[in-house]
């Protein structure tokens, strides 16, 4: 029988799925440590990465917002970049919206736990009970792992002195490589074309425009994808 309310139990999921979820938590913890350390080492006060991780709770958007802030891009460009990245959570929410539970409390709390990973784990389950269990178990552990990691990283980052000496300025772009390379590997050629064009636009604009703006300008690269589709191509 399918349960769409009541307590979620670990026994609702097969052990193989639970093991995959635990591995995800460990990965989140290490990414969280990097985020906290890089944010503080780049010159932000300790509370910024810590509060941001609890309230925003979206890895790629947080890394991007911090990159724009520390490059001197200002709060508006930083928030805009993060928000554009997070528009996709609306699409995820529509996909898992009925897996959170029926009560409003479950929906209001569960909404904050919607990430790429909780969506993927929930949608991979074959029935409603397991989808709900996978969503909540993945989400609760991921939230704890991410925030504990960020706090630990931020504390460690404030202990580092001269960050350029440790090459920490290369760590942030390396994080983005780790996030985006698996996506690019499987992406359609039009997506790769749009990303390459966007990168060229952003780098070309960087010497001329205020920090933060060149990255937003990269979205012009999307025109490649849109035009090709409108023209009936692949």
């Amino acid at each position, binding site marked *: 029988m399918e349960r769409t309310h009541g307590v979620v139990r670990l026994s609702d999921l097969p052990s193989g799925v639970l093991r995959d979820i635990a591995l995800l938590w460990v990965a989140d913890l290490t990414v969280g440590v990097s985020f906290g350390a890089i944010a503080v080492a780049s010159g932000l006060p300790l509370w*910024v990465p810590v509060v941001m991780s609890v309230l925003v709770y979206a890895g790629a958007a947080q890394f991007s917002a911090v990159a724009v802030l520390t490059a001197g891009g200002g709060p508006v460009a930083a928030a805009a970049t993060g928000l*554009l*990245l997070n528009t996709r959570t609306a699409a995820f929410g529509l*996909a898992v919206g009925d897996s959170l539970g029926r009560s409003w409390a479950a929906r209001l709390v569960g909404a904050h736990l919607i990430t790429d990973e909780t969506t993927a784990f929930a949608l991979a389950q074959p029935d409603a009970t397991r989808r709900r269990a996978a969503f909540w178990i993945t989400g609760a552990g991921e939230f704890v792992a991410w925030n504990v990691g960020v706090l630990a990283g931020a504390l460690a980052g404030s202990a580092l002195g001269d960050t350029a000496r440790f*090459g920490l300025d290369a760590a942030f772009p390396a994080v983005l490589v780790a996030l985006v390379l698996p996506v690019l590997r499987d992406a359609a050629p039009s997506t790769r074309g749009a990303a390459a064009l966007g*990168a060229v636009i952003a780098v070309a604009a960087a010497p001329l425009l205020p920090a933060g703006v*060149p*990255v937003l300008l990269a979205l012009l690269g999307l025109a490649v994808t849109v035009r090709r589709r409108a023209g009936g191509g692949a």
Partner: protein
Amino acid sequence: MNAQLACVLALAAGTYAFRLVGPALHGRVTVPARVQDLLTTGATVLLVALLATGTLTEGHGFAGWARPAGVLVGGVLAWRRAPFAVIVLGAAGATALLRLAGLP
């Protein structure tokens, strides 16, 4: 209000609003595949642009050679599917070593 706090709060409020759309509608609406594709592609374009500017530029100028070389090491590790921590530490370590050797 402190500008950093304003940024965090605006990003938090907007993100939560995006997330709440689906649960509030409770699965009664689906996103057209085309729109979903566009959102995913848009996110990839933004991340790659951040990656490119973060690798090559510092302020309005060139970041020097040590940083892009380190990121390249990170990229090779990522391509070989190394764990996340190895990718990040490999990039930072390579850049640190190159600076130690005198490369800017």
